[in-house]
């Protein structure tokens, strides 16, 4: 049941259906930190479904989609990207203060993203290698997920996120229920779909057994091993998988780099790759 007694925001009207009051349209904001915008694009990529979504919400802040800005507070904030500057640190705190619910979307926001490779190196070396005037650059030494800075209500994994899962998170949040999103390994998804295990049947290295489900087994179903876009599963055993990857012919360095990509900074992946340093 979705009976709400919340006061409706100015623009929305509580429609009646039978005697059940319609919920008020929640105010939604979408924020960007260090990221490629791909996860925000997943929201815009919802296309037909997006029309249904905007019928149920009020988009109050979403620069990727509209220049119209409605002031906070917001009912739900979606946050894309990782924290890489001092400015980011201050901004995320402000956003948290203005948001009833804060949901992080994508590998950058949930683990630090590919830019967290700097966490394993000296960021000054990178700056000197990339910029003509390194002295113009001010940045933190690390790229870190949002939940290291503020409390997060829900994390949606993926690089990029799966739009069906995003719709499910929006849907569940609007209907006050827990999102139906499993935290098991990719293998469960492969087996349910009938995708033949690449590692067992072909000896192809795959991070599936330690990777969070959710992508719709994009890679294994097209003959590619999983490379961990959705980060660690709920109970990853990176050490054991690492040993198996070596048996399949990967060098120690290859194993390290396999675990060190889009979710390099995610706990279990980080621990495994560091063991191979």
């Amino acid at each position, binding site marked *: *049941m*979705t009976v709400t007694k919340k006061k409706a925001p100015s623009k929305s009207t509580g429609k009646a*259906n*039978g*005697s*059940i009051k319609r*919920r008020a349209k929640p105010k939604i904001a979408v924020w960007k930190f260090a990221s490629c915008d791909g996860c925000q694009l997943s929201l815009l990529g919802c296309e037909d479904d997006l029309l*249904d*979504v905007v*019928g*149920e919400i009020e988009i109050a802040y979403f620069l990727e989609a509209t220049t119209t800005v409605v002031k906070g507070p917001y009912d739900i904030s979606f946050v894309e990207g990782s924290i890489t500057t001092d400015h980011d640190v201050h901004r995320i705190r402000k956003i948290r203060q203005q948001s009833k619910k804060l949901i992080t979307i994508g590998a950058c926001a949930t683990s630090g993203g590919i830019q967290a490779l700097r966490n394993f190196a000296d960021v000054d070396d990178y700056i000197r290698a990339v910029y003509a005037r390194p002295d113009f650059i001010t940045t933190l030494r690390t790229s870190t997920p949002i939940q290291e800075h503020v409390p997060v209500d829900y994390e949606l994994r993926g690089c990029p996120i799966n739009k069906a899962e995003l*719709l*499910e998170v*929006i*849907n*569940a949040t*609007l*209907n006050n*229920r827990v999102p*139906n999103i*499993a*935290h*098991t*390994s990719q*293998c*469960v998804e492969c*087996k*349910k*779909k*009938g*995708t*033949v*295990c690449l*590692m*067992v*049947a*072909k*000896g192809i290295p*795959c991070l*599936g*057994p*330690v990777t969070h489900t959710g992508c719709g087994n994009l890679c294994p179903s097209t*003959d590619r091993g999983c490379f961990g876009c959705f980060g660690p*599963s*709920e*109970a*990853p*055993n990176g*050490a*054991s*998988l690492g*040993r*198996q990857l070596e048996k399949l012919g990967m060098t120690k360095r290859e194993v390290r780099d396999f675990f060190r990509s889009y979710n390099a900074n995610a706990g279990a992946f980080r621990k495994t790759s560091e063991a191979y340093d």
Partner: protein
Amino acid sequence: MTSSHGAVGQAHSKAHSAKETSIPVGTKVVIDEAGLSALFSRLIKIGYQPIGPKVRDGAVVYEEISSPSDLPVGFSDEQEGGKYRLVPGTKGSFFEYLVGPTSWKKFLFPPRHKMWSADRDGKGFTVENPTDDAPAYAFIGVRSCELNAMKIQDKVFGFGREDKCGAGIFSDPGYVARRSKALIIGVNCSRAGKTCFCSSMGGDPHMKEGQGYDLTLTEFAPSNGKHEFMMEVGSERGALILDLLPHREARSADVSMADSQARKARGEMGRKMVPDVKDVLPRNLRHQRWDEVAERCLSCANCTMVCPTCFCSTVNDTTDLKGDHAERWRSWDSCFSIDFSYIHGGAIRRETKSRYRQWMTHKLSNWHEQYGTSGCVGCGRCITWCPVGIDITEEAKAIKNTGE
């Protein structure tokens, strides 16, 4: 196969409405490739959807098939802990392969299944039970261990039990409907693989009379243009179908050829389960081996997904965006997932060690108390399809040899 279940399929009744047969259950005949082709066309004609082995993505999987040319012709396989490879087999053979990653449970107990839906209706809501529109399956190529697995799941889902809700006896209507309609055409194993151990789980590579098949085939390896199969009738349904196929009576030479094939396969079992595992495991719940296996276990749930008897599921409720339509879905889950043991306050099996121990002790020990049988049929899938090759027979042996 009994006719006591109300949900007989179209195919079932069509087969029965055919002319009476004089072929008794237990009859052994021989058919050739033309006979096998005729079997497929006959099944399709009377309304069955044939499901059987097919090569896809480097493995033999069970999918919809429509003729013998869809079978894994000329393929065999090699299996070891964590390793499966399709290899060339006897030229022209249809059934030389052994069990692969799929099992028949995918059809009888689908990975995702809608239980009901509900729509908002004024002040309340209306519930709708979905109709099960699964066709009558003809499972072609069911192995002896797989038929045993099906009989284990029958107990779990209540196939063959009369519903007595008041007494707490009830069955899963979808499973019972699909299972009642399904025709089982077994295939005897001409060999055993390195991860096979049906013999030590009370099974046998060749089916026995009364095991529950409708028809069963023993393939005689093709040579000099001759490719024959001994067919045994296991039910009246099977007899009615056989009656319409070109066949000849089996001679004693055919029967002894099948017997020697069975002996050969028995002798090739690659693995063996310790005989008293049912009693060994509960005595050793604190054995150090559980810690050791947890070091290797990926907690990925592959073993439970490929297991033909594992039946655990989770139930999720979904809504549409407006919250006017809700659905309840059941989908495969695993004792290796943390949420699976979630009760008020948190999950009770948080460590991989506890989850592996739960799986193995349930499968090999507690299952007996629950269902009067072991939960393992010795098909070896959990060994082959474990990405790191954890071997349930090896774990059992280690615990027995070093435990109490």
